[in-house]
């Protein structure tokens, strides 16, 4: 579970780097779409694992929080993939993704 949440933090941080380059017009559309699809699929996979793992009742809340984070991270990556020419949205996604990466790291450390 700890590793799964750390993985979410890593994906969010990497997606923030991609969003930063996208916001500055320093990337290629195909790269954002293909690599973004890999990261988004990985986010979904981590959320599924967190959902399916049997956990103690006191861990239910952090797990639900992590699954919600996974949905937010995947959504932001998918937004970038759908409209990679939208730099303003990429700028907003970058800020959100960095924030979620920090939140996931704190959640993992607290477990």
């Amino acid at each position: 579970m700890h590793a799964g949440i750390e993985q979410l933090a890593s994906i969010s941080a990497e997606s923030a780097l991609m969003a930063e380059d996208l916001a500055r017009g320093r990337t290629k559309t195909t790269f954002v779409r293909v690599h973004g699809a890999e990261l988004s699929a990985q986010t979904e996979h981590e959320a599924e694992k967190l959902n399916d793992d049997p956990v103690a009742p006191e861990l239910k809340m952090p797990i639900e929080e992590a699954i919600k984070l996974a949905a937010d991270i995947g959504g932001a990556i998918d937004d970038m993939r759908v409209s990679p020419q939208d730099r303003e949205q990429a700028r907003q996604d970058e800020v959100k993704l960095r924030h979620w990466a920090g939140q996931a790291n704190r959640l993992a450390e607290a477990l």
Partner: protein
Amino acid sequence: MKKVFQVALGIIAAIGGFVDIGELVFNTQAGAVYRYQLLWAVPVGVIGIVVFAEMTGRVATVSGRPVFDVVRMRMGLNVGLVTLVASLLINLITLAAEVGGAAIVLQLLFDVNVSTLILVAVIGLVLIVYFVPFGGIERIFGYLGCALLVYVAAAVHLKPDWHHVSQGLIPSWHSSALYAYFVVGVIGAALVPYEVYFYSSGAIEDRWTVRDLSLNRANAVLGFTLGGILSIALIVVAGEVFFAPKVQPGYLGTTALGAQHAYGEAGLLLALLGMLFAVGGAAVECAFSGAYTLAQFAGWEWGKYRRPREAPRFTLAWMIFFALAFVVVETGVDPVLLTEYAVILSVVALPLTYLPVLLIARDRTFMGERANGLLASTFGWLYFAILLVVSLAAIPLMLATDGGAG
């Protein structure tokens, strides 16, 4: 002048040909997780491959016997057969990883279905290998693989703390299984055996004579050493871009993101081009290595300098290797995961081919005045000891860390 030019071309090809998917994966992960702390493992691996490649090139040049000829002669049929089967299996896993890697890079460039791109990659590689002569193959992939030098430029451009970088080159130890796993991975990624089988068979393909032994030494020492600088650059770039935000790289796209972060779209395109030709070249070397080992062990006619009609079983063998790799990758297995298995299993099997070459290279009745001197013998045995330790630790560490997952 012609000789200097020949040496320079060989070195350029060796730089571009040094990096394969193993280096791209393990070095990026090592830099992201431990920043510069694993830099020292690169020279350890590079000196190992220089020692091994120089010996195999010298043995092949002096005796006309490439690695698997020597293995069978020195180890006998039964042990030789075990070594052959292990090498062929590892070669196939590595080839599948390289073909999968080439398809992923093409997908990052063109956003087309990966299944189609695996087929495109395999057909493209088979056509190049069939129609282009041996020297041309070395040059196409070696020179274009040099686009990866963008990582050397990026490592400087990102302005790392050079004091910390230099400290990373001093061996250090952590009591962590994950750290030890990455040490094995970084050393193993530099010491892949297929490069050595290809190198020694290439000496015979290029019809080297004892007059070319200085060329052998220059190619092995300078080519692999300068290639090692690429590995160091990959670690430094990953350390600068991915360490602070705690990114755990699991895709080739992440490695490309490092170059993009330094130089934008131009950096990304150079990185992807370099990766495509580096993994494509490695795929060709793997397919040839498989065919070389099989043909040399069985005593078939072999060599790219021969027409397919003159070496039909050799030609069929490398084609079958490509076909098998295609089937493996089309199952949907993750090429990055395959790479990790290939590197770790290569390390485990390496002493089986290293020892017979070392024994022959020091044998004066066989090599005459070209046998290992004091320096080559010292390094030869030192590396045999290192290889034994690394090969015994590799699988337990892979299991203990869940393949580097922590």
